[in-house]
């Protein structure tokens, strides 16, 4: 069995990395330039961020492939194959024990919201999946999906090509009066279950919510989904300060919420990390607090 699959299924709890895009922007990635361009143009900056996460305690890093599907890159006139392969190689060079390739949404929506169609999704994901499966990755993480139908297209494109590769799927939820829903109205537990039923190794949520709300979401999902879970919240909300844009949540606050989540979910949790606004300091604080609480990433399979 793939070591990573074993790790996800049997534990111990895996510490992921945090935000990548926000790190690139701090290093001067200009607005309007997709993060994927730096894979070729400034690989040293990208490698530097991956390494900082590994130093902070991340055992797995996400390659810079979130937006590297042909539909999205075509808007910038970028060719996607090389960008995917190169990004995975860079992540590998960081020395991280595991490398996860990222697959984000295409940016096209079905009517009535947009003008896209299922075939556009399908072709985009199939093309990206083909390239990523040839690259040296331990898993693929479908992330930040706000429409379960798009997540399913990505998942089934992958599963048609490989039944073995571990696939993590994270949706992005808003907190409404009646609970957690995606922007398209997909409910929390049912969505996660349906992804698990269709071959997701791990399911979860990322982005949109800060760690306190994500902790609440995790509790709601816990015990109601039959595969292990993954959560990567944002570091609060972005705020404008004199020194530029900053996320409101400090590493210690983020770490405290995540440790509370780990304590309440126990062995139902496969992996945790951060999304927008989190950086190596958040991961470092989280690792430290996990250790202080004697949660040394050991997860005994039930």
């Amino acid at each position, binding site marked *: 069995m793939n070591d990573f699959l074993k790790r996800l299924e049997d534990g111990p709890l895996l510490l992921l990395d945090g935000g990548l895009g926000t790190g690139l922007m701090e290093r001067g990635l*200009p*607005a*309007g330039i997709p993060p994927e361009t730096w894979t070729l143009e400034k690989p040293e900056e990208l490698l530097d961020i991956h390494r900082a996460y590994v130093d902070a305690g991340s055992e797995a890093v996400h390659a810079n492939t979130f937006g590297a599907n042909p539909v999205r890159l075509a*808007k910038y006139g970028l060719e996607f194959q090389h960008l995917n392969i190169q990004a995975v190689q860079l992540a590998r060079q960081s020395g991280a024990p595991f490398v996860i390739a990222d697959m984000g949404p295409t940016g096209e929506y079905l009517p009535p*919201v947009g003008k896209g169609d299922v075939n556009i999704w399908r072709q985009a994901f199939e093309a990206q999946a083909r390239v990523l499966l040839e690259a040296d990755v331990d898993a693929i993480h479908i992330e930040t999906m706000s429409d379960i139908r798009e997540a399913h297209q990505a998942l089934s494109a992958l599963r048609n090509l490989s039944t073995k590769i571990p696939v993590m799927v994270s949706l992005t939820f808003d907190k*409404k009066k009646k609970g957690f829903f995606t922007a398209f*109205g997909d409910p929390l537990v049912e969505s996660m279950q349906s992804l698990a039923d269709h071959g997701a190794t791990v399911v979860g949520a990322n982005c949109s919510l800060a760690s306190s709300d994500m902790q609440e979401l995790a509790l709601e999902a816990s015990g109601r989904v039959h595969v292990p879970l993954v959560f990567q919240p944002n570091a609060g*909300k*972005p705020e404008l300060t004199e020194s530029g844009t900053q996320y409101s949540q400090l590493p210690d606050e983020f770490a405290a919420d995540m440790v509370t989540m780990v304590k309440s979910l126990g062995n139902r949790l496969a992996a945790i990390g951060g999304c927008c606004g989190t950086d190596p300091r958040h991961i470092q604080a989280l690792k430290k607090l996990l250790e202080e609480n004697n949660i040394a990433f050991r997860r005994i399979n039930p």
Partner: protein
Amino acid sequence: MSRASYSDFERAVVDGDKEKAEKLARDFVEAGGDLLAAVEEGLVPGIRKVGELWEEGEYFLPELVQGAEAMKAAMGLFNPALSIGNRQLPDTGKVVIGTVEGDLHDIGKSLVATMLSANGFEVYDLGSEVSIDTFLQKAAEVRAQIIGASALLTTTMSKQRDLARAIEQSALPSRPILMVGGAPTSQSWAEEIGAAYAENALQAVSVARSHLQ
């Protein structure tokens, strides 16, 4: 026409039933009904209800868009009839809208555009990744009173500030105001850059209205 038919309009919008809204509107125009009353007592309460359901978490993006599309369809049939009949809806104004340069996000902005046009505004949606020059050119061309700019990333919201300055310096004759929105933006950010702020698509309509009065 009896008052009951106004609630049919309301229902069609709440249900997001574009075909029904069109049929109702066509019949209503032919029958010579009171169009303004149908707007004010049928369509507007309908779209307001859609907005409320959205805020409550009963409705989501697709229902919101469908409601707005139904309203837009009815308005599309009412507008020509209103101008022939010499009875005008209040002059709601022209809006040029887009997502700022560097930002591909489209949903929120499109929703605002749809809601504004459903509420009678003449909306020019420039799409995503709109440069400051494009905003200004279009606003000059159509003599827009409002420029709407969305930013969904903390890194692109600074473009809203650039746009605010550019609008001020351009001294366009229609003297458009800038209305901003998007996840990272806030009332205080809007005030800092000298723009109006709308937290969501519903608010955008009332903010746009209040600036034209």
